């Protein structure tokens, strides 16, 4: 399907007809998928600029009579309690996600490099053990980790989240980065070694700069994962001032079940940072995600 009609030879009309059938079929399908993807998000935005009263109409107004940004103003206003909470959740999420990202990269970079380049006993076993971590759901670790965190006094701290998120982030980070290192020609390091660099110097001075796109992609992935994580934040944190956005929003709206514009505005605000981050850096990101699964 991919190469159809790139340069359709000007020959049989019937053949061109079929080619057009494929092409139009693909287009119609894409339009359908586009609607499926975009309509829920558009509806979220439209709802978020309605008044609470306008949202509770049946049949719904396709476009509000009086669009209002009141829901957004409320969320971003440090003067009222809603805004205070929302901004605090936002900073908490930002702090936890950033800390997780930095630590993930620091720990994953050398490990991925070692898995890519060295042959030490147990290498394959360790690498697959790392990969297998991806197989297990958060819930399996929840009870024992909760007990562990309580024992070392980390329940109700952001540190407990960072430490936990690190374990989700690491396997994937190592896998992504290894894909990048595998694609960096080993001759570069060998040349550096011949010029008298130690192995560690060759790694830091030659390989690290070359793998910057991979590191960026890995960082984005860790950040998005930590930003969106819910179940541990929901279990480990109980104090209102420590909640991260997903849990905070859930707490908040389980009390105000009918403020749909507010809920949609909050969902939108929660999605903005990660979507922007992703769109700006998507090229790195898409490439990195597939390096590991697809060998070029």
């Amino acid at each position, binding site marked *: *399907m*991919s*190469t159809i009609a*790139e340069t359709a030879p000007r020959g049989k009309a019937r053949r061109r007809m*079929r080619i057009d059938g494929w092409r139009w079929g693909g287009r119609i*399908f*894409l339009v359908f*998928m586009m609607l499926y*993807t*975009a309509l*829920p998000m558009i*509806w979220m935005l439209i*709802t978020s600029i309605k008044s609470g009263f306008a949202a509770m109409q*049946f049949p*719904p107004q396709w476009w509000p009579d009086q669009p209002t940004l009141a829901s957004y103003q409320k969320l971003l206003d440090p003067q009222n309690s809603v805004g205070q909470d929302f901004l605090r959740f936002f900073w908490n999420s930002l702090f936890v996600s950033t800390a997780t990202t930095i630590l993930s990269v620091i*720990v*994953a970079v*050398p*490990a991925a490099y*070692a898995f890519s*380049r*060295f*042959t030490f006993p*147990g290498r*394959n076993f*360790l690498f*697959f053990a*790392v990969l297998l971590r*991806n197989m*297990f*759901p*958060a*819930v*399996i670790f929840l*009870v*024992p*980790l909760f007990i*562990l965190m309580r024992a070392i006094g980390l329940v109700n701290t952001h540190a407990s989240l960072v430490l*936990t998120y690190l*374990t989700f982030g*690491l*396997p994937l980070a190592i896998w992504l980065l290894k894909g990048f290192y595998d694609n960096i020609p*080993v001759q570069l390091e*060998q040349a550096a*070694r011949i010029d008298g660099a130690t*192995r560690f110097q*060759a790694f830091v001075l030659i390989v690290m700069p070359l793998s910057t796109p991979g590191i960026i992609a890995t960082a984005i992935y860790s950040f*998005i994962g930590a930003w969106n994580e*819910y*179940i541990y934040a929901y279990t480990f944190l109980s104090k209102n001032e420590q909640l991260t956005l997903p849990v905070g929003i*859930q707490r908040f709206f389980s009390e105000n079940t009918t403020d749909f514009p507010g809920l949609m505005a909050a*969902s939108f605000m929660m*999605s903005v940072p*990660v*979507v922007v981050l992703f769109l700006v850096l998507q090229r790195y990101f*898409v490439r990195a*995600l597939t390096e590991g*699964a*697809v060998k*070029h």
Partner: protein
Amino acid sequence: MTILTGKAEARRRLQPDGHGVLRKIWEHRADYAYVLPAIAVMLIVIAYPIYYTIELSFFNTPPGLQLRDKIFIGFDNYTAILTSPVFWTVTSNTLIWTLGSTLISFVLGFACALALHRDFVGRGLLRAILIIPWVISAVAASYIWKWIYHSDFGIIGAVLVGLGLADRPPNFIDSVSTVLPSLIVVNIWREFPFAMIMMMAGLQTVPDQLLRAAKVDGANAWQRFWHVTFPHLRNVSTVTILLLAVANFNSFIIPWIMTGGGPSNASHIWITHIYELAFGRQRWGVASAYSVLLFLILMSFGYFYVRALSGNERKDGSA
């Protein structure tokens, strides 16, 4: 100290030779410095919990967290699970959820990848838009769709009523018969982009010469896809389907936020059920036994996953 070995060397499986493993480990001691931090973190936060979960699954545990007072009961937790009717409801829900979400996401994602494989105006923008649902938080997605399905003010119900297809808005997520399909639609919305990204990357590895040669030999579009493109994507497809299946098997947020497993367990899947048992009813022992069963199932998934990845490691790319 070793000097750097090439990729091919690095890929070779280690075979302990006559020198003894310990000596080899000693020779490579510098290598371990690189992986030690990662392994240490994972040991503390992964190995210990796994051990502890297995231990707890053989005990009758008191509510609260005074777990010193636990009583050893052997396999009783396991027999209790397997004889409970809820177990079979939850298991069939999990199967429907996992298979339905995985297959439909994969097919839609693959079709999108194929349709986007050709250059046209606005392709990059379209691709970016299609990926957004995968990036936003599952909690936000759950609330958006909960609002869309709302039985009084939901937009889908309103459209159906407006078109005369329904007298009143249906209860998508409040009725036993429709709740699971409704949640699967949300789940597919969130994860078909992942399949799309993976398959797009896979498509880039299909050699153009082969496709051109097939064209010269008179293969039509369908034959080219089926005999040239698809065999090249077998490995990527396997990995993608496995990753999707595992992610779906392990989902929690969508059913938890949208329905909490209800109505009457119709949307409880394994993970939400385990969470409910542990943190809702504080039955740590039973929840742990469930986790161990889950663990065994995932290990078999993991076996295939590792095999598929090892297939990728080989040069020829055929699993």
